[in-house]
């Protein structure tokens, strides 16, 4: 047999690399802007399109799907070709994949500031974009499997299993979490409601972390770390154990995001049990990475790329130790909704994802440009300012999380809340928020220096767009002696690998999701809970548009510190008409689950116009545009009809007279406001959002008075 000559496609790798750096800078800049808004609300530039609630999803989407996403594709397109000794299956599919993905990101950059969102965290994009994501993901899959089929290396290296598991699991997660009923071209309602919607969302949310931020990166680690250190991975056997254990266990852990909520207790316990187990495979991966450097630690001292990798692996180890710990109910009771979680995710994002990406970029760009890195000093500067940036980010956030949580839970000896005003606890931690933004700024500065360094590197070299390579073609399978070891056989059967990975992740998915989605007794209904009026429904959609859920939760946990502060704890039956659920995951402001009727309409009007009028020192932005903008009622009928299709018991034909009821309720609120000398037309958006806020959590209060 003669060796075959072929060429690796480096151009697509370069393109994804550029996209990684560009979107990274954009995503992190948006992050810095919203971080500053948390102590200086004026940073929203008095503009609804750049206000926290709307651009926080832009930050998360940009860093997850644009920065990390492009970095994954860069690393996969580089390593896959070389591990399989074959060029990518189709240059055209590579191009479609690249430009399609960038187009999706651009559409996110446009729609999210406009308030077009499903409000599902990390899945905010509306249904037409969801379809585009599915199509592009399939293109990526075809391109990857096409390459695998025409490979010149029989056995698939462990990195490729991680890529395969990533591909199939993200596909399942994305599809299940995107069941939406379109109301118009850019508006839809989630098919699931309340508790069920929450469970699906956090099954998705947690596994997006697992299969977008972790498994592909572990694959990259297993390829690039041996290349960088020029030695094989510490233990290939450990990598097999690591892989199967990780994908099997991860999928169960989602419910730890919903501890103490109205999710059935058994699902919470199951989520906790598997979250604790997760430490085993996670640390297996970290140890395997770090031990690869055994005997090469002298290299780490003067090789900045390895430094990035060591910090990345250490951050991974810290975040995956913290994850199981945070999932313990006792710890979660303190940490959840607080800045502690922000610290936790950023140790993972900045340390693990960020630093691993930078390590790969510094290693890969000089190689595909056949030159040396422009400046090692700059890379070293990047390493140190980035590491310090992570510390300056995380430590204040841990501090802030503890402080605020403990303040919120503190009682006086008389049994009263020591800090009954939520704002007091917010003001206490503002210095920490300032420190955090400095840390984030340092980290971003490092990335900008890297961008300059890499640009100069590229300019001084010349891209080897098609890199010549040589390998023996695969011998026909029949000539290989039958092997008894089934895992070894599996390593050369990509489709079986795909199917088994799929089965492994479906076990946890079914056990966890199906009972809550199908057995109605898991969600006891409450007779007093009625569907939203048309005006309240419109107000709820404004609440979704403005991203209020980014700072205000709507679920009261059964702690005395919460029932004293917010009122009766939340019940599953209260959320049965909530498509989507709006429980939130962070309390930058107080919970709103029982906000209804707590204050008068005039209070809400003034508070939305300028929160500092009612709560001096508040960090909530002004929502003055709600006063001037007219409520769009053209979709009221369609919205009612869509909700009925989803099982909300509006009477037949109600969509035709919904706007009449809407006008009536709006006039009542406007009249009520005029008694407080507030002159506002009844067709303004603020009327609808006040109607919604005044409704929140009142169903149960009503039933109490009815019982009396």
């Amino acid at each position, binding site marked *: 047999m003669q060796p075959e000559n072929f060429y*690796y496609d480096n151009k697509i790798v370069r393109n994804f690399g550029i996209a990684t750096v560009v979107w990274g800078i954009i995503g992190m800049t948006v992050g810095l802007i919203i971080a500053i808004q948390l102590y200086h609300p004026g940073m929203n530039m008095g503009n609804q399109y750049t206000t926290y609630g709307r651009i926080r999803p832009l930050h998360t989407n940009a860093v997850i799907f644009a920065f990390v996403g492009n970095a994954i594709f860069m690393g996969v397109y580089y*390593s896959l070709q*070389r*591990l399989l*000794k074959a060029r990518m299956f189709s240059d055209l599919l590579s191009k479609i994949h690249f430009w399609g993905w960038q187009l999706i990101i651009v559409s996110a950059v446009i729609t999210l500031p406009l308030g077009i969102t499903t409000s599902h965290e990390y899945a905010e994009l509306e249904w037409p974009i969801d379809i585009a994501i599915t199509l592009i993901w399939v293109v990526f899959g075809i391109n990857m499997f096409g390459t695998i089929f025409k490979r*010149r290396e029989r*056995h698939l*290296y462990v*990195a490729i299993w991680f890529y395969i598991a990533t591909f199939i699991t993200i596909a399942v997660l994305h599809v299940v979490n995107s069941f939406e009923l379109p109301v118009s071209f850019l508006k839809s309602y989630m098919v699931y409601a309340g508790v069920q919607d929450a469970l699906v969302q956090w099954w998705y949310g947690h596994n997006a972390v697992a299969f977008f931020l972790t498994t592909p990166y572990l694959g990259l680690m*297993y*390829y690039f770390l*041996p*290349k960088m250190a*020029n*030695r*094989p*991975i510490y233990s*290939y*056997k450990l990598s*097999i*154990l690591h892989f*199967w*254990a990780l994908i*099997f*266990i991860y999928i169960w852990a989602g419910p730890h995001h919903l501890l103490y909520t109205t999710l*059935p*207790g*058994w699902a919470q*316990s*199951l989520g*906790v*049990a598997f979250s604790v*187990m997760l430490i*085993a495979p996670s640390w297996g991966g970290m140890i395997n990475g770090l031990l690869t450097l055994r005997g090469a630690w002298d*290299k780490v001292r*003067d*090789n*900045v*790329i390895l430094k990035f990798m060591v910090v990345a692996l250490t951050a991974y180890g810290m975040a995956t130790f913290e994850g199981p710990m945070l999932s313990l*109910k*006792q710890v979660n009771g303190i940490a959840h909704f607080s800045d502690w979680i922000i610290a936790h995710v950023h140790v993972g994002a900045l340390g693990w994802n960020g630093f691993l990406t930078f390590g790969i970029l*510094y290693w890969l760009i*000089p*190689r595909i440009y*056949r*030159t*040396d*890195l422009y400046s*090692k000093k700059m*890379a070293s500067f990047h390493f140190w300012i980035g590491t310090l940036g992570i510390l300056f980010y995380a430590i204040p956030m841990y501090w802030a999380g503890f402080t605020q949580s403990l303040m919120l839970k503190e009682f006086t000896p008389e049994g009263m809340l020591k800090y009954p005003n939520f704002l007091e606890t917010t003001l206490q931690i503002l210095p920490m928020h300032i420190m955090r933004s400095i840390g984030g700024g340092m980290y971003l500065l490092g990335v900008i220096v890297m961008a300059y360094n890499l640009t100069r590197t590229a300019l001084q070299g010349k891209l080897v767009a098609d*890199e*010549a*390579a*040589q*390998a023996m073609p695969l011998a026909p399978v029949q000539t290989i002696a039958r092997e008894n*070891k*089934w*895992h*070894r056989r599996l*390593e050369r059967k990509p489709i079986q690998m795909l199917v088994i990975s799929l089965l492994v992740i479906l076990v946890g998915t079914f056990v966890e999701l199906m009972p809550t989605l199908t057995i109605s007794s898991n969600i006891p209904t409450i007779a007093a809970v009625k569907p939203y009026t048309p005006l309240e429904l419109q107000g709820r959609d404004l609440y979704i548009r403005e991203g209020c859920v980014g700072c205000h939760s709507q679920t009261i946990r059964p702690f005395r510190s919460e029932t004293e502060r917010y009122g009766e704890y939340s019940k599953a039956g209260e959320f049965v008409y909530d498509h989507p659920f709006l429980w939130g995951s962070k309390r930058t402001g107080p919970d709103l689950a029982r906000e209804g009727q707590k204050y008068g309409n005039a209070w809400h009007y003034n508070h939305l116009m300028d929160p500092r009028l009612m709560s001096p020192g508040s960090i909530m932005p002004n929502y003055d545009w709600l006063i001037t903008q007219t409520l769009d009622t053209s979709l009221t009928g369609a919205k009612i009809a869509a909700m009925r299709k989803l099982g909300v018991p509006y009477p037949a034909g109600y969509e035709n007279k919904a706007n009449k009821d809407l006008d009536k309720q709006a006039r009542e609120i406007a009249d009520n406001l005029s008694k407080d000398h507030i002159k506002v037309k009844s067709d303004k958006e603020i009327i609808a959002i006040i109607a919604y806020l005044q409704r929140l959590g009142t169903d149960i209060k009503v039933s109490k008075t009815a019982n009396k």
Partner: protein
Amino acid sequence: MFKQFTENIDGNQVYLLLSLSVFFIFFIVVGIVLIRIRKHHVIHMSDLPLHDGVNNLSQPSEL
């Protein structure tokens, strides 16, 4: 602390026992598979990233 976990579970403890057995069985099965893998195969597999069919002489110097 574990007493609190068991008490916090609604209904019965079947979920704890189930997760524990799943955990152990899973690792035992993968463990058996790993023990049975041959050494030369492990060496071949872990060397895969280091051989990519490219003439590496013109690679950039180490940082």
